[in-house]
C-alpha cells in the first residue's frame, strides 16, 4: 500500500453556468474503477453530507479520476468553490456494479445534461468491445452540451439536440431515439443516462420496439455500500439497492415515479439549506467588496 489517497484537486474547469469538471488525485480509485461506477464525496467529515457523484473518466497512470457535476445543492456548490490544490476530505469508491460490457452489435447511447458524463466511460467501453455506437446527446440549450468532442470521437453516428433549438436538432432526445429504434435492423441495446424524467421517457420510447434499455440511477445515498437502504428503488416489483445492486438497471422495469418521489424526500429541508447557502455566499461577496 503506497500511502493514503490524498484527494487533491488537479484540475478544475467550469463547463457551463453551473457545471464543473474536476480531476482528483485518487490512485486507488483510478486503478480499480470500471465504466458505470461512481464515487461518494464528503467535504467535511464532522458535519458534511455524503453525496454520490458519477465518474466521467479515469487515468490509472496519473492516478486520477475525473468528475463532472452540477452545482445544485449545498455540497455541490461548496465543491464547485474548491480550487486546484485544495483537497476533498473524503472520497470513497469506486462503488456500484460495473457496466456489463460485451459486443452487442449496435448500441444507442443517450445522454441528457450532465448524464453525458457517466455515459462517456460506458461509450468508451462499448466502443472498445467492438460495438457500433450511436450517441444522442441532449441539453436544455447549447451552453449545457458537455463532452461533445470526446463523444463525437467515439461515436459512429452522433446526434445532438437542444430543447430550445440553439444547437443541433430542436427536439427532446426521445425523438431521435425513436427514429433509431425504428430502423432495420433495430439497435441491440439502448443505454440512457440523464435526469430521471428523461430516462423514464427513453425507456417508454424503446419499449414498443423491444430494444433492451439500460438506465443508470443516481439516488440519495449515505454509505454507498449497502448499509442504509436509502437508495432503494422498485425494479420489476422488487426492492433493489442502487449502491450494491446497481446503479444500472433494466429501464423497462424501474418504477421511475416512485424513484422521483424518493429523490424529492428532502426537497423542503434542502431548499432551506440551499437558500441559506446562497445567503451566506451573498454575505461573503458583500464582505469581500467592502474590504
Amino acid at each position, binding site marked *: *500500500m503506497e500511502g*493514503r*489517497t490524498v484527494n487533491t484537486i488537479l484540475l478544475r474547469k467550469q463547463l457551463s453556468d453551473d457545471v464543473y469538471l474536476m480531476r482528483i488525485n485518487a490512485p*486507488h*480509485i483510478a486503478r*480499480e474503477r470500471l465504466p458505470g461506477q461512481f464515487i461518494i464525496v*464528503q467535504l*467535511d*467529515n*464532522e*458535519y*458534511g*453530507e*455524503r453525496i454520490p457523484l458519477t465518474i466521467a473518466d479515469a487515468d490509472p497512470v496519473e492516478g486520477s479520476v475525473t468528475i463532472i457535476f452540477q452545482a445544485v445543492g*449545498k*455540497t455541490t456548490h461548496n465543491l464547485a468553490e474548491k480550487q486546484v490544490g485544495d483537497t476533498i*476530505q*473524503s*472520497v*470513497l*469508491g*469506486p*462503488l456500484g456494479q460495473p457496466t456489463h460490457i460485451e459486443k452487442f452489435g449496435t448500441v444507442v447511447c443517450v445522454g441528457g445534461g450532465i448524464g453525458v458524463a457517466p455515459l462517456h466511460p460506458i461509450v468508451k467501453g462499448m466502443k472498445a468491445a467492438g460495438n457500433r455506437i450511436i450517441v444522442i446527446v441532449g441539453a436544455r440549450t447549447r451552453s449545457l452540451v458537455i463532452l461533445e468532442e470526446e463523444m463525437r470521437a467515439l461515436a459512429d453516428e452522433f446526434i445532438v439536440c437542444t430543447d430550445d433549438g440553439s444547437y443541433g436538432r430542436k427536439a427532446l432526445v426521445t425523438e431521435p431515439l425513436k427514429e433509431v429504434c425504428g430502423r432495420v435492423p433495430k439497435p441491440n441495446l439502448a443505454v440512457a443516462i440523464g435526469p430521471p424524467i428523461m430516462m423514464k421517457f427513453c425507456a417508454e420510447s424503446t419499449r414498443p420496439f423491444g430494444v433492451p434499455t439500460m438506465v443508470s440511477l443516481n439516488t440519495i445515498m*449515505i*454509505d454507498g*455500500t*449497502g*448499509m*442504509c*437502504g*436509502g437508495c*432503494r*428503488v*422498485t425494479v420489476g416489483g422488487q*426492492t433493489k*439497492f442502487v449502491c*450494491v445492486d446497481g446503479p444500472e438497471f433494466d429501464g423497462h422495469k424501474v*418504477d421511475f*415515479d*416512485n424513484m422521483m*418521489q*424518493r429523490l*424529492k*424526500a*428532502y426537497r423542503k*429541508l*434542502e431548499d432551506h*439549506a440551499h437558500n441559506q447557502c446562497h445567503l451566506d455566499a451573498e454575505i461573503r461577496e458583500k464582505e469581500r467588496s467592502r474590504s
Partner: protein
Amino acid sequence: MSHVTPESLTEAACKVLDTIQKRTTPLTPKERLSIPAQEMPTQDPAVRRRNVKEVALGYTPEQAQLESLRCLQCKNAPCIQGCPVRIDIPGFLKAAAEGDFLGACGIIKKNSLLPSVCGRVCPQEVQCQENCTVGKALKSVDKAVSIGRVERYVADLERESGKTQPPVIKPETGKKVAVIGTGPASITVAADVRREGHKVVMFEAFHKPGGVLVYGIPEFRLPKSIVQAEIDALTRMGVELHTNFVIGRTRKLMALLDEDGFDAVFIGTGAGLPKFMNMEGENLVGVFSANEYLTRANLMKAYDFGKADTPIYRTGKVAVLGGGNVAMDAARTAVRLGAEEVHIIYRRTEVEMPARVEEIAHAKEEGVIFHLLENAKRLIGDENGCVKAMECLRYELGEPDASGRRRPVEIKGSEFIRDVGTVIIAIGNDSNPLIPRTTDGLKTTKWGNIIVDDNGKTSLDRIFAGGDIVLGAATVILAMGEGRRAATSINALLEV
C-alpha cells in the same frame, strides 16, 4: 416510574458504606445480601428527551464500592460462565470492593479490550448477571450484582485518569495483517495481533472508524468519545488506519494478499444490509431502515440542526417496527429529534422482545408508546408518494416456534388504520454482500454469512472472519469473543 436524582442515590449509598467501613469484622453473606442494590443514576427523562447526552450517568465511587460489596465471591463463580470472554468477575469485584478501582480495571482488561463499551452495551442480564447467586437468592435477576455498571465505572475512571497502561508490544516481526472493518471484532483483532509485534492495517469504508459503535448505537447510549479513545489507543500502538477505503471495491480482498504483501486478513465487516418486510408501500417517502435513520442521526450528526448538512425527518408521528435494541435506539432517537409521538409496533408481547429490559424501560420513561401483538400489513401513501398511514393487523400468541418464543398468529379481519408520517423498519440485517461477491471461493451460508471453522478461518487460506458477518446480527461482546479467537489463530499462523 418516578425518577430518583443522582444526589439522593449517592447520599443513600454513602450512609450504608459509612456503616460498613466502621465495622471491624468482615461482612457475612447474609449481610451482603441485605446491602441495597445500587440503582444507576440517570438524567431525568423529561430533560433527556430533549438532548443526546448519555442517559445513564454512571455510578459514583461510593455506589461502585457498595455494589461490589454485594458480591458473595462464590467459589464456583457462575457469573464467569455467563461471560463470553470469561472475565474474572469475582476478582475485579473484590478489588473494587476494597476501593482499588484501577486494579479492578486491570483484571477486566486481561480478558476484555473494551470495558467502557461493554459496561454500557453488554446485555448483562442474560449473561453474567443472569447466573449471579445474589440475584437468585433475592429471586430476581434485577437484584443481581450490577457487574456491568461496576465494569463501566472502573473503566471510565481509568480512561479519565489518564493512567491507562499502553499494552506491551513485542519486537516487530515484519509480518503484516489487514483488518477489514473497524467495529468491535476488528478492534479486538487489531489489538491482539499488534501486541505480538505484527504490523496491522485497518480499512474502514466510512469516514470515521468504530463501525456499529459509531453509526448504529446512539450517543445517548454510548458516547462517541469513548469509541474514539479506543481507536486512539490502537493508533498509539502503531496500528495504521485507512478510512474511506472499501475492500472489495477500492481494493479486492485477494489483492491484499497477492500484491500488497499482507500475510493474513481478518474480515469484520458486520451485518450491514437492512432487511425490509416486502410489504406494499415500503418504498414510499418517509419510510426508512433503522440503519439509515440511525446513521443519519448518529454518524452524520443530523440531530445538530443548522450545523449538519445531512437532513432527517424530525416531526410528526413516528412508527418503529420491531422490538430489538435497534428499534429502541431508533424510537428514542426520534423522541430526541422532536417527534410528536413515537410508537413501537411489535407483533409479539414485551416478554418476547429481544431488546434489553433497561432499554425498554428507558424508552417508556421517555414517552415511547408501545403497541404489542400488532404488526404493519401495508403502508399507505398520499398523492406525493409520502407515507401517511399504515394498515395494521392484531396478533395473538400461538405455539412456540424454532426460537422457543411463542409464534405470533394474525387475527383474521382485525385490520385497522394508524396515521403515521414516518415509518422506521427495525427488523434486523442481512450480511453485506460486497466482499463475498467480489472474492472468488469465499464460502457463505445461504443468508450470506461467511462460514468459518473453529479457529475463525474461512474457506480461503490466510483469511479469517468474525463478528456479525459470521454470526448474523449479535452483540458487541460476542463480536469481541470472535475477534479474540481469530486473532489467536492469526498469531499462531504467523508464528511459523
